[in-house]
């Protein structure tokens, strides 16, 4: 094991990690935008409304991410109406945007399924209370159901974010220099696969660790009202001492 090689590779690898993080957060953001309408439609009682999001989710969860990525990056170029389109083609010929589009569609399907479970887990009483107050269905959805569902979905969304971080390594297969891609280019020069891949692994682990901690913090902050209040007279609290 050559530690010097590992240290030498570090600056380039961190550059790659920055691209991995970009892919993760941009697709994580668009994934949520895709997931919200899908989840609402998927939680519907109406079979016709449910069918389309169901098929979408089933396709994206049932096929490998690598196939989806190749389908977008290589596959779409088969059609003349895309390669000749002056707006679409400049975007779809860039591996960066293809990766973001694919990852967003992919994670969107997973988030939709998480969110559907959360929407269905919102206590009926809260919805009934909103209706009793005269809220419209859309207002109930926006102010009661979705905020509550978001809180329920948060832990599972955290897991999905970590899975997506690992999925983002596939960007290296379409020539992007993300953390894995950067490691592969460095190895092509220094012939030290063990050291370089291990260093990349350490960086992935660090990112995962920070993500897990960050999500736990957000979870803690958003569930303050769910925790039992401290009982007994708190020290240094004049109101309690009276």
């Amino acid at each position, binding site marked *: 094991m050559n530690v010097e090689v590992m240290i030498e590779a570090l600056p380039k690898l961190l550059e790659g990690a920055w691209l991995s993080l970009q892919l993760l957060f941009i697709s994580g953001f668009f994934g949520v935008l895709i997931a919200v309408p899908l989840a609402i439609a998927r939680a519907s009682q109406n079979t016709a409304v449910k069918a389309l999001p169901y098929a979408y989710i*089933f*396709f994206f969860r*049932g*096929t*490998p*991410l*690598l*196939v*989806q990525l*190749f*389908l977008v990056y*290589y*596959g*779409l*170029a*088969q*059609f003349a109406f895309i390669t000749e389109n002056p707006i679409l083609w400049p975007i779809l010929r860039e591996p960066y945007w293809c990766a973001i589009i694919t990852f967003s569609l992919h994670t969107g399907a997973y988030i939709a399924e998480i969110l559907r479970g959360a929407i269905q887990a919102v206590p009926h009483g809260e919805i009934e209370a909103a209706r009793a107050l005269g809220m419209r269905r859309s207002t109930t959805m926006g102010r009661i159901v979705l905020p509550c569902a978001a809180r329920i979905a948060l832990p599972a969304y955290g897991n999905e974010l*970590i899975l997506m*971080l*690992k*999925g*983002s*390594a*596939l960007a*290296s*297969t379409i020539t992007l220099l993300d953390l*894995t891609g950067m*490691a*592969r280019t460095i*190895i092509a020069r220094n012939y*030290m*696969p*063990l050291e370089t*891949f*291990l260093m*990349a*692994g350490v960086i*992935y*682990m660090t990112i*995962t*660790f920070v993500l897990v901690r960050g999500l736990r913090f957000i979870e803690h902050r958003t569930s303050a009202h769910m925790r039992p209040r401290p009982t007994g007279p708190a020290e240094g609290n004049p109101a309690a001492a009276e």
Partner: protein
Amino acid sequence: MPDLSGFEGQLALGLWMTVRLALSSLVIGLVLGLAGAAAMSAPVAPLRWIAHAYTTIIRGIPELLVVLLIYFGASVALMKLAAPFGYTGYIELSPFIAGSVALGLTFGGYASEVFRGAFQAVPPGQAEAAVALGMSRTHIFFRITLPQAWRLALPGLGNLFLVLMKDTALVSVIGLEELMRKTQFAVGATKEPFTFYLAAALIYLGLTIVSMGLLAWMEKRANRGLGRATAS
């Protein structure tokens, strides 16, 4: 079905390789998972540390990196290990073995958590009753604890298997001629990427559907002792 211009046979060969890869990774993964679960609840602390480090590392780094690390890294490591014994030749792992080990390691890391939960959920009274009946430790494990834990672990393991099957596509990156690699060859020859990648996607979807059916059947079988009598 789209026109595959004579590549059906090649894709079928690739599919067969994908299935073989998935099954051999599954075997490695189940063994590692059981070993990991056993180590996690072992009385020896260093064993527990190793098992926890294993699952934490596997869950923290990408599957693709594991595949690349095993394929490129393991041959370097093996050569370094062999050098003191006087062997200086080149050692190369076949993509099939490297892929099976890498995917097996991934599966095992997650599976050890599943198995651990399942074994903890089997009431201790079951094993105590077996001890009282005079069964040996191996007998207790294979006849009492494992069948009951298996029932509880099956849904989790099923999900992991579905993930594993999709991850087999990653092994195409190190050159194993499985479904994805064969599809790439077909794309190179026909210049019809969308047609072929869509065909591959549909084949993977088919594999997922078949596996889901099998898993549902296995779960039903594993739970057969728990059914209630019905009137009809």
